[in-house]
């Protein structure tokens, strides 16, 4: 049996149980969301004892070296005695300064961080509420802008999104942890064609990435596809059309599955993207964000058409997963 010490008490783990599940089961409060090792909400630090390598996959080397690990991916071997602490020192206080409805079910949440906060446009952060509720959101803002901007989709019954929609008033305090993720623009090869494709609030990181690339002087064609089920699922349409009007190399294509008209194209996102590519897309770079099935399917298709794996940056938005089992949608 492995055991975990947290704030001066020892907690036994069941065989094969993760540190996150073991602590939650025994009443310890640990922020968490995706439970799949992606969102990094459940980051903790081992103050004594070794964590399995698998618990540090995807973490920055600087965090690994300091003993940080993901509690949801940490299954200590039998006999391990691990002493852990929360990662509160990695969280910076922030204030919600503005909420703006972008569409029927998407709200822009803008935050001011009260400490220096380095990130790349397109990365994601975890917002931690005072009571420990945590959710990850991609950043739609640029580092040079004063505020962090998140696009929050209102999920029926969603704990955090419901709170944003109903209860939050400007001035509300939260903590922000991160950033994480490697879906961002890297300067260099300014003539390379870029493909940006997202569904729903997958537009958030792309909105950051496209502006980042343009400001960095990217001259190659940038194809931005935004897919939604129907026209009311699209947002920032006017802002992106205006951006494309100012930058002839930006080609913005909003796309819906149903209800399209002269203004908005109708059709399946993946097929339209593939049809728009040259026969051999050499030197292209892709950024794919949003619905996991759409992102993973498109990544595979792009690889098969000739994209190099290293040139495909994919950010699949995983739903938060409550302890009772995998139930999608409570973001």
């Amino acid at each position, binding site marked *: 049996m492995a055991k975990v010490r947290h704030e001066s008490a020892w907690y036994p783990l069941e065989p094969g149980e993760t540190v996150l599940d073991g602590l939650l089961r025994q009443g310890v409060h640990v922020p968490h969301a995706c439970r799949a090792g992606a969102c990094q909400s459940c980051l903790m630090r081992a103050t004594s004892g070794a964590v399995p390598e698998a618990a540090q996959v995807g973490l920055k080397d600087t965090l690994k070296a300091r003993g940080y690990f993901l509690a949801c991916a940490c299954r200590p071997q039998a006999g391990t005695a691990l002493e852990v602490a929360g990662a509160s020192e990695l969280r910076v206080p922030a204030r919600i300064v503005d909420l703006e409805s972008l569409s029927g079910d998407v709200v822009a949440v803008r935050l001011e961080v009260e400490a220096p906060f380095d990130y790349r446009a397109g990365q994601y952060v975890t917002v931690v509420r005072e009571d420990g509720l945590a959710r990850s959101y991609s950043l739609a803002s640029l580092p040079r802008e004063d505020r962090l901007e998140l696009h929050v989709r209102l999920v029926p019954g969603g704990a955090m999104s419901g709170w944003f929609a109903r209860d939050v008033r400007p001035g509300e305090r939260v903590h922000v942890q991160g950033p994480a993720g490697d879906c961002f623009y890297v300067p260099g090869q300014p003539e390379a064609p870029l493909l940006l494709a997202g569904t729903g609030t997958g537009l958030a990181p792309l909105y950051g990435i496209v502006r980042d690339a343009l400001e960095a002087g990217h001259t190659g064609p940038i194809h931005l596809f935004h897919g939604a089920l129907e026209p009311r699922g699209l947002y920032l349409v006017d802002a992106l059309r205006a951006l494309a009007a100012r930058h002839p190399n930006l080609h913005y294509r909003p796309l819906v599955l149903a209800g399209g008209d002269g203004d908005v194209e109708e059709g399946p996102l993946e097929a339209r993207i593939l049809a728009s590519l040259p026969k051999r897309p050499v030197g292209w770079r892709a950024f794919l964000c949003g619905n996991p099935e759409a992102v*993973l399917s498109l*990544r*595979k298709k792009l*690889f*098969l058409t*000739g994209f*190099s*794996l290293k040139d495909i940056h994919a950010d699949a938005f995983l739903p938060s997963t409550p302890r009772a089992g995998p139930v999608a949608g409570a973001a």
Partner: protein
Amino acid sequence: MSSVYERIGGEPAMAAAVEVFYRKVLGDDRINHFFEDVDMERQAAKQKAFLTMVCGGPSNYSGKDMRAGHKHLVERGLNATHFDAVVGHLKETLEELGVPAELVGQVMAVAEGARADVLNR
């Protein structure tokens, strides 16, 4: 004598070969269901390790690992036809990258030697 791995350019050659090889395997409906993986980087890394092994490069694979690593696929129906298809893609990959026929032959012999372990016979 130096290995095929060294003679065709070592690790950079494997890095180039793995994308060509993985693309062929993933595009082949006879076998791609054995290679579907949400984590494409991990799958590509596995295939790079395989290419490195059959080319005689640094490898930690043993026959026992080969058996254990493919057991669940054999249970899902992996058979000699699938093995032949993969070996065919391997051969095409090396040929496309300009590897001399003599060296391709050596790699084919190593791959053939793994048949019994891969198919758990």
